[in-house]
């Protein structure tokens, strides 16, 4: 489907030489900018760029796997941080008033500006005998982007129970922790799932961008850059890395969807 559109657009662009009624088409369609699908697929089995063993497909696969692990770790860290923030903000109204603006503000700092900063701090950081590893910066970046939708979604979910349900728990003399575990958290699940989906997408983007600025090698983000720089003669190769990154996003999304199916199997369909 996508491949067909790609080729159709390319064919059309070639035919009109990238101009329609004097307007430039939004994307170049020459072979350097938009290689044929077959060329891209063919590149997967080509040999790697200088000095590196194996084929392009293998490098893309292992790079994607590397980035996937970093992004998933980042997502998990972001989830824990986001949940903790949401629970604290739900518990203390004052904290919510004081913190929520900063939580929102945290996301307006541009990613590109932030990534080198995190890397810089990280390099100077040392916890006990453990040195900060560059991959930790990548994970940190993922977590930084993922925690936001999760914190906001979780806070909404934790505050979603009706007054009557809260009164019911009060009438049982339930403690705040009991109310959290038996009412607020289960009630938050339908709010959390879309938030985790957003968080997962953000974690993948964060990992790829952070790889570039942290100079961590081995990931698909780095691969995109490498192919850009070293393989100008073979533009199709860059697209193989793009496909790797896209598949990576799909895998993470599929994982979250699987989680959703498990968590919502006993919920009324209308409520979702």
């Amino acid at each position, binding site marked *: 489907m996508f491949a067909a559109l790609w080729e159709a657009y390319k064919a059309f662009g070639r035919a009109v030489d990238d101009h329609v009624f004097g307007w430039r088409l939004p994307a170049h369609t020459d072979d350097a900018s938009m290689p044929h699908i077959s060329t891209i697929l063919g590149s997967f089995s080509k040999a790697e760029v200088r000095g590196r063993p194996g084929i392009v497909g293998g490098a893309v696969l292992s790079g994607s796997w590397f980035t996937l692990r970093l992004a998933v770790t980042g997502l998990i860290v972001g989830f824990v941080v986001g949940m903790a923030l949401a629970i604290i903000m739900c518990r203390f109204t004052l904290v919510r008033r004081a913190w929520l603006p900063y939580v929102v503000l945290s996301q307006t700092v541009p990613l590109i500006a932030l990534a080198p900063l995190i890397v810089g701090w990280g390099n100077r950081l040392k916890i006990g005998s453990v040195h900060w590893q560059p991959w930790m910066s990548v994970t940190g970046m993922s977590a930084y982007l993922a925690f936001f939708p999760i914190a906001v979604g979780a806070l909404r979910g934790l505050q979603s129970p009706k007054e009557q349900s809260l009164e019911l728990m009060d*009438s049982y003399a339930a403690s705040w922790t009991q109310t959290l575990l*038996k009412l607020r958290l289960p009630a938050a699940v339908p709010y959390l799932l879309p938030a985790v989906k957003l968080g997962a997408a953000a974690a993948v983007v964060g990992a790829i961008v952070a790889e570039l600025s942290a100079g961590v090698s081995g990931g698909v983000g780095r691969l995109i850059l490498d192919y850009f720089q070293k393989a100008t003669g073979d533009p199709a190769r860059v697209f193989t890395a793009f496909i790797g990154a896209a598949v990576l996003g799909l895998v993470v999304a599929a994982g979250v969807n699987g989680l959703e199916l498990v968590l919502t199997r006993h*919920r009324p369909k209308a*409520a979702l």
Partner: protein
Amino acid sequence: MSGPAAVECRGVCKIFNQGKPNQVDALIDVDLTVEAGEFVSLIGPSGCGKSTLLRVVADLLPPSGGSIAVNGKTARQARLDFDYGMAFQQAGLFEWRKVIKNIELPMELRGWDRSKRSARSREMLELVKLPEFGDNYPWELSGGMQQRIAIARALAVDPPLLLMDEPFGALDEMTREHMQAELTRICASTHKTVVFVTHSIPEAVYLSNRVVVMSPRPGRITTVINVDLGERSEDTREDGEFFKKITEVREALRGGELGATARGIEDR
């Protein structure tokens, strides 16, 4: 009567937003005693403070003045001791819990062990005549069935007092009459004291030993009507005495409004 009254209100006031322009005198100087084993209904026009009175008794809202005793203790102590169970207009079952787990909620909060919980919740399902629905989810049940589960949940840890806020308000007439009969049966077999808020005059008369009539702005008790219809059955609804009491309550409700108007004129 031996033992302390189930509920004892003396001069209870509740003023929302005191001192602000949107101040509401929800309850003014309410005296009400409910003896153990009694069934008392609160009736009155919307906004007269019925729910507020119930919440103050349940210690879900602090009173602005006056004193409240439940089973001879403070309202707070009674709440901590699980002396009452509550039911609301919406059944309010937790949709992520099976029916049986909903009934077990108060038992979990009291720390009962699993076998005691499941034995008791099965028993409660029998009591509300839904034994085969324990493993369903709440949204698979009709409104009336959900409300019965909510009552089972309120009764689960066997509190001596039931506080009910229009529990049948959202049900259709047929289901409603059926539920009323069920509630009288359950209360008779478990010797409960009940404070019951309703908008329906026949419902109040059918269920109660006493009907407390309230009037709004400020919320207060205007009349208390004793009802003595003997054991309730379907025939009770055709009884002459039943209709007489309905008329009496209706006139008390009207009188409350007329009285308020008359006093307004007098003050001027």
